[in-house]
Each structure stands twice: as C-alpha cells, then as structure tokens.
C-alpha cells in the first residue's frame, strides 16, 4: 500500500493545477487496486508439459475407442439405390433438419451464411454496441424491441411448422425475460449472474441450444422419409 504521506490535502482555486478527484462507489462494490504484474510461469516446461499430458490422455482415449468400435463401412456406393434416410455427417444434421422445413436456399445457404457472418462479427459487436448486461440500461425500450423480435420470429417459425426450433427459442426467451424482471440491486446467485449477461451472450446461448437440439434430433430421432423415430426402436 502507498504511503499516506503521498497525499496532501490542499485547497486551491486553480482546478487545472490541482484537479479535484471524487470517488463514487456504487452499491455492492468496493475500491480495489488492480494488479499490474501477476505471477508468470515458464512456458517450457510448465505449459508444454501440461499440453503434452492433455494430448496423451486424449490419444489414449481415442486409441481405446478405436480398439473397441469399428468405423462404419457400408456396401459399395450405388448411385441407383438411395438409402432412406440419406443422412449427411452428424455436424450437418442440424442443417439437414432445417432443410426439411425451409427451401434449400434458406436452410442451405442463407442460414449457414448468416451464422458464419454472426460468428465473425461477435467480438467486434461486443465492444461497439455492448459489453454490459442487456437489461441494465433502457430496460423498457429494450423489452419492447425484444418482445416484437421474439413474437415475429416465433410466428415465422410456427408458420413453417419448425416446432423443434421454436421450443428452444421460447425457453431462451423465457430466461431473458427472467433476467429482465430481476432487480440487479437485490438479485442473488443464478439470477444475479443472468442479469449481467450482454446481448451477445444471449444470442450465442440461443445458437448453442438450437445447434444442440437440431443436431440431436437429426442424428437420433429421424428415420425413413425424415419421419420421427425413437433411437432405441430404429
């Protein structure tokens, strides 16, 4: 801590020479000094060793998996015989699920294009527009915009019968409303954590949930003619 003698209280009419400093400390915070130099370790051996161990553990796990389960190999490719259903690799099954509802230009081009654009824009968007909790400022105006966007989007999904995307959207929107209705001054635990989340967090979380749900449905719950099946009956 600095020596108290560093500070001398003076009264001076020249504000440019002796600027007045007023510290405003808001509720639930305390004045603290940020550390400039923090502890560092040598990359070699500390970091490289840990990375090597992580990769070795992964390699052992993959070797065990490879010894236990064989990679699928079906019969020779036959252009005359279409399997039902013809499925893309698992990481594209979310898109294939959307392809079931929307025309190819929307599900195959527009949506993945927008997703990639959004992913690239995220870190820039985070500084320029907001890095603070979505509901901490302009709450009522933002609630109105949020309400309109969600309702329009949900109607859009309902018109195309995309219930599998609609349900996760409603769940995420419900959490956003919960955050909006929480008083940031008194909230505790999970609610307090939710209140501090910026818009980019909500969009990314919505994307993660949709990605997970659509991929899981495409992988496990779709059978012949892209109809619903239960994975344990297939």
């Amino acid at each position, binding site marked *: 801590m600095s020596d108290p003698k560093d500070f001398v209280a003076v009264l001076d009419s020249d504000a440019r020479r002796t600027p007045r400093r007023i510290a405003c400390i808001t509720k639930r915070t305390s004045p603290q000094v940020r550390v400039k130099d923090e502890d560092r370790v040598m*990359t070699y051996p500390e970091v490289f060793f840990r990375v090597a161990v*992580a990769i070795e553990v992964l390699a052992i796990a993959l070797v065990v*998996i490879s010894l236990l389960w064989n990679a699928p190999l079906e019969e*020779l490719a036959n252009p005359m015989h279409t399997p039902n259903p013809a499925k893309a690799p698992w990481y594209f099954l979310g898109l294939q699920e959307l392809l079931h509802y929307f025309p190819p230009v929307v599900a195959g081009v527009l949506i993945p294009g927008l997703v990639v654009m959004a992913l690239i824009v995220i870190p820039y968007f985070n500084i320029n527009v907001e890095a603070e909790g979505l509901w901490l400022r302009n709450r009522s105006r933002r609630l109105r915009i949020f309400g309109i966007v969600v309702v329009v989007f949900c109607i859009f999904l309902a018109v195309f019968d995309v219930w599998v995307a609609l349900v996760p959207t409603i769940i995420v929107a419900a959490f956003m409303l919960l955050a909006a209705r929480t008083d940031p001054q008194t909230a505790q635990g999970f609610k307090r954590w939710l209140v501090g989340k910026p818009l980019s967090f909500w969009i990314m979380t919505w994307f993660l949930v949709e990605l997970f749900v659509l991929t899981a449905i495409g992988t496990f719950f779709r059978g012949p003619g892209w109809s619903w099946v239960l994975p344990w009956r297939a």
Partner: protein
Amino acid sequence: MANTLDQLVEQVRENRIWRSIFRSGTGASNLHRALFVQQNVFLHLFSVKARKRTVGFSATWYLGAMTFGTFLILVITGILLMLYYHPSVPQAYADMKDLQFVVSSGVFLRNLHRWSAHAMVFLVFAHMFKVFYRGACRPPREFNWVIGVVLLLVTLLLSYTGYLLPWDQLAYWAVTVGSNIASAVPVMGSKIRFLMLGGTAVNANALLRFYVLHCVILPFAATLLVAIHFWRIRKDGGIYAGEPAIEGKSE
C-alpha cells in the same frame, strides 16, 4: 541408473553437433528455458512465459491443445492411410476392404482416423464456445477469433471431404445430400456444384477432387492458419486470463 542416464543426456546436449543444432545449451535456469522456446522455429510461436492463471485446467480445459492433438493424430494416421489408398472408382472401396482384411492393423488405423476426425469437429466447437463464454474473444483478441472461425470452416470441410473417400453408400449419399445444398445457391448454384464435383453428379472426378482437397489443399491451409492462430496468442498478449487480478485477493 537415473544418475547415469541424466549424465548421458547432459553429455549429448553438450556435444558440439547437438549444440550446433539446438543453441540454447544445457542447464535448467530460466534463461535456458526461455531460450529453448525462443530459439526454436516452431516453439517461438509461443511466448516464453505464461500467466499462471491461464495454465490450470479451469482456464481453457485444454480444448485448443486437444484439438491440435487430434490434428496431429489425423496427419499421422492420414499419411499412413494414403499408402494404402487409390482415389479411383471402385478401387477406393476395395482399398477399404483391404484395410479391413489384408493390411496389418488396417482396421485400427482407419478407426483411429475416423474417430479422431469426429473428435476434432466436436473439440473445435467446444473450444469455440469455451473461448466465447470466457470472454476471450473480446479485443485485443478479436482477429484471432476470426481466424478461429475460418479454422472451424476448414475443419468442417476437411471432415466433409474425407467422408467421401471410402466410397461406400454412407459416403456417397452424405456427399450427394451436401452437394445438392450447394446447388441451392442463387444464380451460380449449379456452377458451384459442378466446380465442386468435377461433373454433374458425384462420380470418379468428385472422388479425385475431394481426395486432393482432403490430402493437400485443406491440410496445408489448416497448418498455415493454426500456426498464425498460435502466434497470434502471443501477439495478442497471451491466453486470456479473465478480469485483471485484484491486489491482496489473488495468489
């Protein structure tokens, strides 16, 4: 035994020829350890020191490191698989059968390549979400995030092009589904599909194109981008450590 082994290692490292290759020399001082990283063309992508808070498991879950690990496994097993593979119809499928019944450990080799590929796609996604939720993609690391997004696309393309190579029903129809999506691009959709497949349908030309993409162009692009991705970690101030530490509270 341990003593003599250590001595032997030291002797080798003090050897003139060894010193001509690795200039950092023997010793365990921080200077030597710093030189070990800084004077190696590959390792000097990384910084010599790392913030202690970023080294533990909870900061990164080592997801980026493990993604790189799967990439290494895929390169090694992929090169070995290339020794047994002909990108032609229907020989490609016959080679799969050879791997199964003729080549020693052929099934294991293919399994390891296949499962590692799935693991890599999964780990890339996991790494991306982990980075986002930690807030590590914020400035000054925003461009490294963009490189990461491009690497995600390269990973998906690597996996997708590799999917066709066994030339079985699974491969053929998965790629047919995917290439039909490409033809949905407005105006030039069918042109893109033709360029992608080298024809109007998935055939021997498509197999050869996917093979070249899978074994040459995309791995080269991935290697280059991974090198930049690692180097940018150092240039952007090391792995994100979270909010600055508070005096008196931390460590």
